[in-house]
């Protein structure tokens, strides 16, 4: 398969750095949510009625995680060496990183949703 015929998401290969994209997105979203709540409660004493910024940030985080999960998912399907994909070949190493990224994307997705729950169910500064 030549490089030209590959789609863009197949060319964007997973590495040790892309592995940590989904959890990093969770971490950034979490930190942003916490700092935002802490600063607005400490400085203004109240929390937005309808937190537009927070909603947008959450959607953006979920989208980024989904995208990185989808790319990883495509790469776990790369054809090549036979199962169980535990050999020291290029394709198996790639499939391993892709699979781990996909799983981390799942966990991070849940993590971001969990972070959004307090805003839905508490929503004020008391």
């Amino acid at each position: 398969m030549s490089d030209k015929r590959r789609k863009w998401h197949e060319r964007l290969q997973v590495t040790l750095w892309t592995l940590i994209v989904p959890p990093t997105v969770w971490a950034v979203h979490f930190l942003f949510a916490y700092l935002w709540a802490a600063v607005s409660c400490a400085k203004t004493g109240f929390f937005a009625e309808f937190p537009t910024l927070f909603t947008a940030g959450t959607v953006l985080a979920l989208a980024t995680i989904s995208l990185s999960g989808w790319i990883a998912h495509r790469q776990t399907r790369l054809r090549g060496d036979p199962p169980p994909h535990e050999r020291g070949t290029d394709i198996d190493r790639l499939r391993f990183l892709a699979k781990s990224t996909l799983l981390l994307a799942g966990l991070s997705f849940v993590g971001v949703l969990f972070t959004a729950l307090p805003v839905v169910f508490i929503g004020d500064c008391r």
Partner: protein
Amino acid sequence: MSLHDQDDPALRAAQEQRLREVWAPPKGLFLRWTDTNNNQVGNWYVLTAFAFMLFAGVLALIMRTQLAVPDNDLVGPGTFNQLFTLHGSVMMFLFAVPMFEAVSIILLPQLLGARDLPFPRLSAFGYWSFLLGGVFVSGSIFFDAAPDGGWFMYPPLTTRTDLSGLGADIWMLGLSFIEVSSVAAAVELIVGVLKCRPPGMRLNLMPLYAWYILVVAVMILFAFPPLIAGDVLFEMERLLDWPFFDASRGGDPLLWQHLFWIFGHPEVYIVFLPSIALFAMLVPTFARRHLLGYPWIVLAAVGTAFLSFGLWVHHMFATGLPKISLGFFSAASEAVAIPTAVQIFVFIVTLWAGRVVWSTPLLYATGSLAIFVIGGLTGVMVALAPFDWQAHDTYFVVAHLHYVLIGGTLMPLFAGLYYYWPLVTGKKLSDRLGRTAFWLIFVGANLCFFPMHLSGLEGMPRRVFTYPADLGLGGLNLASTIGSFVIAAGVAVIVLDLARSPWRPRSPRNPWQAGTLEWLAHPEDENWGIRSIPLIESRYPIWDQEDFVRKVDEGRYFLPDAEEGRRETIITSVLDARPVSVIRLGAPSWKPMLTALALGGVFILTTYHLYWPALLSGAATLAMVLWWLWTGTAEIPEKPCKPIGHGMELPLYISGSASPGWWAMFITMMADATAFSGLVFGYFFFWTRHEAFPPPEMASAPGMVWPLSALALGLAGWLATIAAREVHARGGVGMARILLLFGLATSIAGVPAGLSGPWFSGMDPTAHSYPAIVWTLAIWTCLHAAVAAIMLAYVLARSLAGRMTPSHDADIRNVAVYMHFFALTAVVAYATIGLFPEVA
């Protein structure tokens, strides 16, 4: 050299003789302690950490005896407070963390088929620091001077010198010293896992233990530095009266709680994951099959590492923070249960799919899973804030954390002890004694800690030296006390088993028929680690690769010889483990030990307010470090390349991002930047705590001019270094020296410029938290400017001495990494103190 050369037994014997000589440990009563080889240092490390565990266990027994009956007076509150403070601190800082580092120092080179870790002298330095700091902290109890503020050391109880004594300084400075050694170990382990794997061991073939250690070491980099930042503020308040935690002068005790728990919660996972990593090694062995779900374990380890940094406030649920903030942390604390459950089920299905061979290590693993699951479930309970408001700071939490740590750290370590003892000593431990000890510990732990769930909910707070009889908790407490002695009996049986081990028969090689690399170790212990560095094609090479053990033993793989009489190992690439170079490792030396002594002097002398001797000791440390670097790093080899067998030739010198030294600098500076961000967090934390910050009467200090001038000087030094690096690489040695000199001058000038802002605006750091934190940021940055100056001077000297040339330029490339981080620090610090008051 061709493959068939290894057929000649005489050649092999000659090679072995050379390797043996090169790797021979130093002999002699004193000289033997100069050894740096991972086998020796690792063993000292494990034994020392084990001794600290026994010590802390005895402290616990005294506490349990005091609490056996209500209104007891075996020990008074003064002693009791020292006991529980030391028990927690020693178990965490002197047992759990060092034990994982120690086990990794022993195992990791074996697991990775390396001769040693990349920085053996750094490991030795870490060990001596740990020993010195550990003895200093624990010994204090024999002088009735032990820390008595709890292992969490909450100010103002611990910062007010009228309410707490020398113990607080001993804790803070002694343990800061040990934190330094933990960060050193993290550097060693990360570089070891990423760069010292055998050829062919791609990321997906790495033993899971190495995955866990990589993750945990990275966690240390981000978890320990906030505590170091907290320690800095804490000692500034105790020694110089800078009011960071004094509410009457604009400080806030909660700042410490944040910094402590940003460290403290990841810490729990730092001691838990390496123990689970031992499971990941022994479960496949006793299931007689590959571990199912390798990527799931990587998910669990990486996921836990990330989530663990979003949990810290669950130790602060009762501090009155807005409920919405608590909600975020409650949610993350629940989420972390998911990767934990994944790990447990991966082990279960592996056993399910395989053929289970019962053994003492597996028995320990089973028991610890049972205990850990209970601790994990109570963890889910306390992660819910409404429940935690009742359970927090009661014996319920004592029960929870001991279930987690006994099931998640201690018993897996015992499993590892029984599993790996033959690897280290060539002898198996007794199955009979092992099983007896297991049942004593298992039953004792449940008897000791299960009743505490109830005594906590029935109103027994933690850290009480006694409790009234009419609370009706005498029975539960007596049960706990009996349980604690049953555990102690179990541990005593293990100690007995270890003591009898030298008289037991030798076990065969690889007695459990495991499949991973570390079991290549020979019972007739050779110090060289591995005879030849293999080519890896499977996760379980001993099981899967044909004739693997014989080929390794006959030196048919890489680097089977030590022709130049140097200790060497192979450096490979990060993702795919392609051979990159051969590095020369440090030989036995006094330097690590002496450097640790000098650095220890800084901390210990400061504890006793002996500032001039402490300063002298600091100068000695600096001199030692420079001597060490000058004589032992970036050495220009006698020839550019060397053959490693199979027709491969590898360079003996590399610089830049392919080299371990560059990675070590990068990783160290990540830790440094994290500590710095802890201080910056302090600045903005104070901002949220005050209506007006800076306070109106100080709003014009330190002004913009001086901070921005200092920033300009810092950036000039940074640019000069980058230019010098580039010019130097292109052969312009003279120009590079001039640029270095310029960078040196601007860095030195940056120190007074940075301090002038707060100085000339007359900021009194004892008056309020604002001047105190501004001074702290300025001093931190200026210290970094001073270090930059020293480094640039060092590089210049290396160039002048002919130890750095355009083709051998590791020194300047490593210093450039430092300068990147320094520039970042300067930008953030000076923008904060100079510009933020304008917009706040």
